């Protein structure tokens, strides 16, 4: 039973199970992960857009607040005094009024044209100066009244400075209004504007960091973004762990960077793959567990059948397949058993027939041994009687020898004419024996002469008539008539003797009623006819309806074929 693995029924079954269980699962999980990925990416995009919009609005507050405050101050009549006089509550009031509503956003300070601090909304140390030849005041001076925004290099806690040159109605510069945003200001400004897992980074016009919601991210991310922008022209919107949305805020020149963590990070993908792998493994295990008993249930009966067949091929008819179950395989097994039984019966019958046939042949051979010697002896007798002038002996021995030869000849079927000839020889012998006490008449139409009949079927009938019917009756006549009746040949032997006893009248002899000694000849003839031609044919015995005597009719099919062949 060693077959290549791949051809084994069980393996193919297992393979089918695996394909049926794994293929849909793998396709499903692939599609699901793709779909969820697309959905999540969409969601992330939407979130990023919304949050960026909120953050941009927050930045707008910066760019609105400074020019607004600057205009309000310029309209104040007190403004020129601010840069000439000392500390003055009225000017402070004007500064607080002008910055009302945006002081949570930043500290505001007034610097004179030399860069000395005059007034401030925040708590600042006196004597603070800002260079007017450097940084934000220099830029504000050159911007001619426009607000400018810069990240100071040495601003301490200040992350972003905005400055605007203040002028009197005649257009002469008076001083500077400076807004300063600290980390706390930015945190307050952006609070609740972006998702908790996201981070915000503010870059200046040249992508140097200004503020980061996560302190560690500030230098590192800003440097890498700037490096990528300058070296490859694109900071790259996505890494394996984060997605970035970068947008410019034109009024301040600042850039807003929103960093979102990737939904599908490397580790998530790993987890997904691990889960898929586990499912596949489960599929394989379940397939194997389900498939093995089933395949065993199918392959075991088939294996048993196969084994039985190979035993059958080796002529073992005692083979029997045990059946378990009423399914198709069970039916197949019981069918096999029936078939083997039928084959066995058939075989026994065949053996029986063969044995019978062999016995018959042996008997026939034995029967053929002596008659030749008898024939020769009879011939010798014929010649001796001729020499000694005993004509009856010569005739009898001649006839006997002919009959004997006819009997032992190999042919089974003879033309009716020949049968009648032999019958005549027999009758001649009987006439000599019985001293011509009966006459024998044969009526054989010429067209029936060539009909083939089993040899020696008439002699026993005639013998029966002579021995049993004509005893003690003078002028007895035995008639043999052949006639055609439809497709059958009908040979009738009548005599005018005693007739048959009533128990013998009727249809063919049945085997069980066959007499052992008497009428054995009739029985044999009937048997021969039936064996050769079937149950329809045989002898029919009755008494002559037209008077005394018995009538024996032999019915057999009309056949000429062998004559034609000769």
């Amino acid at each position, binding site marked *: 039973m060693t077959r290549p693995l791949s051809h084994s029924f069980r393996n193919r079954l297992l*393979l089918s199970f695996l394909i049926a269980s794994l293929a849909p699962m793998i396709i499903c999980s*692939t599609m699901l992960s793709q779909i969820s990925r697309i959905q999540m990416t969409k969601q992330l995009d939407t979130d990023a857009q919304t949050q960026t919009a909120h953050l941009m609005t927050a930045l707008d507050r910066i760019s609105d607040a400074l020019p607004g405050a600057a205009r309000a101050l310029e309209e104040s009549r007190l403004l020129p005094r601010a840069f000439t006089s000392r500390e003055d509550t009225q000017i402070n009031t004007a500064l607080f009024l002008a910055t009302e509503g945006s002081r949570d956003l930043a500290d505001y300070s007034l610097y004179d044209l030399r860069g000395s601090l005059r007034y401030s909304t925040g708590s600042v140390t006196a004597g603070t100066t800002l260079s007017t030849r*450097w940084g934000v005041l220099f830029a504000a001076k050159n911007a001619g009244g426009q607000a400018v925004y810069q990240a100071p290099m040495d601003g301490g806690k200040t992350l972003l400075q905005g400055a605007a040159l203040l002028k009197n109605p005649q257009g002469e510069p008076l001083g500077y209004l400076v807004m300063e945003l600290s980390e706390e200001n930015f945190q307050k400004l952006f609070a609740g504007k972006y998702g908790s897992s996201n981070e915000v980074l503010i870059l200046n016009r*040249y992508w140097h960091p200004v503020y980061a919601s996560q302190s560690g991210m500030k230098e590192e991310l800003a440097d890498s973004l700037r490096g990528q922008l*300058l070296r490859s022209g694109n900071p790259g919107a996505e890494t394996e762990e984060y997605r970035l949305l970068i947008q410019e805020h034109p009024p301040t020149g600042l850039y807003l960077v929103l960093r979102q963590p990737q939904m599908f990070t490397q580790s998530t993908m790993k987890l997904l*793959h691990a889960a898929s792998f586990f499912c596949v493994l489960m599929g394989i295990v379940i397939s194997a567990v389900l498939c093995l008993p089933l395949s065993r249930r199918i392959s075991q009966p088939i294996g048993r059948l196969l084994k039985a067949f190979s035993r059958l091929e080796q002529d073992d008819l005692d083979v029997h397949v045990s059946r378990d179950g009423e399914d198709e395989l069970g039916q197949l097994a019981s069918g096999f058993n029936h078939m083997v039984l039928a084959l066995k019966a058939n075989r026994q019958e065949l053996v029986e027939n063969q044995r019978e046939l062999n016995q018959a042949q042996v008997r026939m051979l034995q029967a053929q041994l002596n008659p030749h010697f008898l024939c020769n002896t009879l011939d010798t007798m014929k010649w001796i009687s001729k020499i000694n002038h005993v004509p009856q002996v010569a005739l009898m021995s001649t006839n006997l020898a002919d009959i004997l030869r006819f009997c032992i000849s190999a042919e089974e079927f003879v033309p009716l004419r020949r049968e009648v000839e032999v019958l005549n020889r027999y009758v001649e012998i009987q006439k000599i024996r019985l001293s011509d006490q009966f006459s024998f008449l044969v009526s054989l139409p010429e067209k029936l002469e060539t009909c083939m009949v089993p040899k020696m079927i008439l002699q026993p009938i005639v013998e029966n008539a002579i021995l049993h019917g004509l005893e003690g009756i003078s002028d007895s006549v035995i008639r043999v008539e052949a006639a055609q009746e439809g497709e059958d040949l009908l040979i009738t032997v009548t005599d005018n003797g005693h007739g048959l006893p009533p128990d013998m009248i009727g249809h063919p002899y049945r085997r069980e009623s066959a007499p052992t000694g008497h009428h054995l000849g009739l029985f044999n003839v009937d048997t021969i006819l039936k064996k050769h031609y079937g149950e329809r044919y045989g002898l029919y015995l009755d008494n002559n309806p037209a008077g005394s005597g018995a009538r024996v009719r032999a019915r057999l099919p009309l056949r000429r074929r062998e004559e034609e062949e000769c």
Partner: protein
Amino acid sequence: MKKQILILALLLPLLASCAEKQPEPYPYTPDQDRRLVVYTSHKEEVYTPIIREFEERTGIWVDVVSGGTNELLQRIQQEADAPKADVMFGGGVESLESYQDCFSPYICREAAGISEQFQSESGCWTPFSALPVVLVYNTKLVAPESLTSWKDLESPAFRGKIAFADPQISGSSYTALVTRIQTGGGMEDSLTRLCTALDGKQLDSSGAVLTAVADGSALVGITLEETALQHIAAGEDIALVYPSDGTSCVPDGSALVKGAPHGDNARLFLDFTVSTDVQSMVGQRFCRRTVRADIPADPSLPPLSTLNMVSYDVEWASQNRDRLLSEWSFLLGEVPS
């Protein structure tokens, strides 16, 4: 199992496939004519404000590559066929001079305002700040009168207790070495005397000189004025001395790289480094001396004119660098211990 593997193999790319986006031109990428690449050996606190201010004033994006002077100069030399840098910002002028093949001469627009002594004859470099060589000592361990000149270093009290950086590594040490030779006594004699005073010991970097003096592992040290002033300002127990037998004041500078991809912007930058605004800041914030004549020097520092200045030949210093250094390392190994 082959079929499974096949199916898996077919599906995996699906799993892994991410929608690849076609790169679009990024809207915020600055154009090439708004860019500048600066190689700088200055410290971050020196170059950052200058470069940020330059960006704000000109709208030019500056890409900074920082590193050691020699490292960056060698890099510029290697990249000579396809220069990436536009400007070398920092480094003693004799170092710049020795790589003059890599630089294009440029006389900046502010040249008129620069002191005569800091002008480059060839225009190969543009000076940035003046850096006199000074001696430092630990104020707790050394009496001020015991260290006034190069000669005092040869006193047995200081033998082996002098912090001096390897001139092969440190450009300022090399300048100091040349200055020492210029103070007289002949080259070989000067070097031998210094070697003996050092007792064959030298440090790996110029930064280590001040640390060694401050923590007392060395009594005195040889360094530049700017470095010494910074450490004094940081409150360390250090004082500086301008050697009475002569010091030098070699400027550091910047140079325009030959074949610079953004040459115009590079010239703007060189002009900016010597502009009044930047030079004012050099004095105010970086403890350096300005190279401009029209900016008043820091009143807390002695004017250069009051110091005994040796005539420092930059050309000679750069041309004889290899010879001098090999002589130095030979003598250093010869010192009898």
